[in-house]
Every structure is written in structure tokens, then in C-alpha cells.
């Protein structure tokens, strides 16, 4: 993601009321922000609503954004995190299984689907049991496939620190999954 110095110019133009400039920022960063929101909420329409809120808040907060080596995508990411906090406060997460039933899975595929849902649930549960920074580095580096450099900017850490964090997070996740697998076998 090439962010400097063009982002700073776009932000300055958007701040001066240039809608095209803000549109360019939107085109550039909608995908990573939308995908980040998508892994944090269960429903696609929630991700859309939240993405709208993120970009609207970002537009309204352009005056508060100062470049200073902090890329615009990292600014958007912080806005997205705040929006998610508000979202969770208002609406507790719903269970995947309930959603699957609601969607009306075809009867003949139900067993397979339930097994798949159970595996997904275990994986999500294992990730949710990790420390927050472990969860975040897995989301950004593994699920969103963001480059280490971008992840480092967004998480405000050095690239080396992100690499070590990812290694520890993946090792911890593997341990948790192995343990839950052994627990299930011993039952």
C-alpha cells in the first residue's frame, strides 16, 4: 500500500472540500477497512453500516488528522476500532449457529454444515481466548493478509515486533486448538 506522500495531499484537498480527493481515499482504503470490519461482525449488512460510519466519521475528523508519519490507513483503522467498540456496546454478538439456522440450511447438507460450523466455532473461540494483541495480529496479518509494514503502522509497532507477535500468537493459537482437540478425544 503506497501511502505517502500522496495520501497527505489527498487529505489536504479533502479537508479543503474537494470531494474527488475524499473519493480517492475511499477507493483506496474501502477494501481493507471493510474486510477488517467483516471479520469483526457476524452480518454483512452490519459491516456495510459500520463502513459507512467509519468513512463518514473520518470525513468529519479530517481536521484532526495530522500526517506526522502516521498513515491515513492507520487513522482509518483507529476510527474503525472505535466504531466497533460502539457497535459492540449497543449490540452483543450473536451466535453463528443461530444464524445458520436462520439462514435455512438445506436438510441434506445439514450434518456437513453443522460439522463445519462447529469447526469454525472452535477456531473462533480459540482466537477469542487469546490476548487482544494476539487476536489483532492474526486478523491483520493472516485473515486480511496485510503486509507486515502496514500491520506495523496500524498497530503502532515496529515490523520486528509485529513478526514476533505473530509468531507467538500463532504458537499460542495452535496450543489452544491442540488442547481442545485432546479434550474432545478424552471425553
Amino acid at each position, binding site marked *: 500500500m503506497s501511502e505517502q506522500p500522496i495520501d497527505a495531499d489527498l487529505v489536504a484537498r479533502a479537508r479543503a*472540500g474537494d*470531494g474527488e480527493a*475524499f*473519493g480517492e481515499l*475511499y477507493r483506496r482504503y*474501502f*477494501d481493507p477497512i*471493510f*474486510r477488517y470490519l*467483516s*471479520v469483526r461482525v457476524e452480518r*454483512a*449488512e452490519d*459491516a*456495510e*453500516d459500520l*463502513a*459507512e*460510519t467509519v*468513512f*463518514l*466519521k473520518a*470525513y*468529519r*475528523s479530517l*481536521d484532526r488528522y495530522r500526517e506526522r508519519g502516521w498513515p491515513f490507513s492507520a487513522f482509518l483503522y483507529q476510527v474503525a476500532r472505535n466504531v466497533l467498540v*460502539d457497535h459492540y456496546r*449497543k449490540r452483543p454478538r450473536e451466535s453463528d449457529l443461530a444464524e445458520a439456522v436462520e439462514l435455512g440450511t438445506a436438510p441434506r447438507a445439514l450434518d456437513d454444515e453443522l460439522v463445519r460450523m462447529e*469447526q*469454525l466455532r472452535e*477456531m*473462533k473461540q480459540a482466537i477469542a481466548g487469546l490476548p487482544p494483541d494476539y487476536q489483532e495480529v*492474526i486478523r491483520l*496479518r*493472516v*485473515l*486480511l*493478509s496485510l*503486509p*507486515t509494514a502496514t500491520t506495523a503502522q496500524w498497530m503502532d509497532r515496529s515490523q*520486528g515486533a509485529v*513478526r*514476533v507477535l*505473530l*509468531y*507467538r500468537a*500463532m*504458537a499460542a*493459537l*495452535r496450543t489452544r*486448538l491442540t488442547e481442545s482437540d485432546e479434550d474432545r478425544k478424552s471425553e
Partner: protein
Amino acid sequence: MSSNERSRADALDRLIDGTEAGATGSEGLGALVSLAAHLRGALAPATAAAQVRARVLARVTNRVAALQAAPRLGRRTILRPAYALAGLLLVLTLTFGATAAYASEAALPGDALYGVKRGLEDVRLVLSTTAAGDSALVEHFADRRLDEIEALSGRGRWDDAERALQDYPQVVDELVALSQADAVDSQAARLAHHLEVLLRVAEKTPAEAQPALQRALERADRGRQEVERRRQVPKPIPPGQRDVEDDSDRGPRKTPPGQERKDQGGD
């Protein structure tokens, strides 16, 4: 952190990016790389479809256009005078004590302390750091303007009431422009309440102030419709759920405010 851990972390990083294919077993990192691939396959979100991207952009653009249509409301436009006011208020407070600021809370348009009351409101807006905070304050201030109109009309101060009514459409502009997407219901209810109060005021408004009152009524009604339309902005509704969502979101069609009171005989 040991140098061994750092080198394993570096290797995992390259392997996950696929820049070092085929070396998974060499450092015992194969299990972690497989796990990463499994996670990506199962949990990675899809890239947004072009439709989604365009739909959200349209919604953002509409909201931004609404903000730009009311330039007076922009933080930048209120910032400088409000800082000047903040300074003035600080001087006032140091000179006359906090009593003046407190007393100004009950001031009505035309009162000596009314300027202080409005100045304090601008300062509160400047000190708000979030869009939700701005919106909540503007809602609160809009209700205050309505209360002031009602109080002035109750006291027969029609000159002041007329001026307040003339300013009222701008109050609705601010309210609509800064409203949050998740507050459509409360905004529509608020504006419906404003319409009810203005209709009550209309019953005793003298002829000279009627034009200002009618403009205020029209703006409140249009504002309510704008907010309602915002709720109806195209939203991704899965096939088969349209009727259910439409009904649950909107509820039964409401009788226009004012009309409802007459039908029910008032209170």
C-alpha cells in the same frame, strides 16, 4: 526474546507471505504455516463486491453532501468564533464569577444573558471530540430552542418569539446534518415532537408572527421527512426478508403530528 525466537518469527513471517515457499519443515514451522492457511481458508473475509463498494460510497456521499449543504455547521466554521467566545467567557467568569454562566442557562432570546448561554453552547460543541458527541449536543440545543419559543409565546413576548422562530429553520438544518445513522428513529420522533409543540404555539400566535411560524413548521416537517428518507436509503436486504424488515423497522404508518392530537381530542 531470544535470537532463536526472532529468527523463527522472521521465517514464519516470510512463509505466511509465501515469499519463502518450500521451507516450512526446515525450522519446524510447518504446523504454524498450515494453521495460517487453514485460518485464511475458513475465516478470511471476501473482498467487497463492487456493488457493496458503490452502495456504501453512495450512502457516505449523501451524508457528506448533507454536511456540506449546511456549511455553518462545519466544525471549522464554528471553531474560531467559539474559541474567541471561550476566551470571553473565561474573562466573564473571572470577572463576575460562575454565577453569570449559571444564570444564563435560564435566559431567553432578548435577555441580557442569552448571548452567554449561546456562547457556552458553542464552547461545548468545540470541546466535543466525537461525531456522536456533536450530534447529541446539537439535539439538546435544538430542544432548547424549541423550549425557548414555547416559553416566549407563553409570556406573550412575541417580538422575541418571532426572532426565535425566524432562526428555527437553521436549528433543523443543523439537527438533520449532524444526525447519526443509528439515531434515525429518535430524530424522527424528536422532530415530530417539535411539530406538535409548534402547532400548539400556532394556536395563539398573532398574525405578525404567523409567517415565521409557518416557515418553522414547514422546516420541521421537511426535516422529519429528510430523516425518514435517510432510514429508507437502499440497504442490502437479503431476498425474502424485505417485507419483514420493512415492517419491523418502520412500524405502522403514522398520522401526521398535530392531526393525531386533534383526532384524539388533545389533552
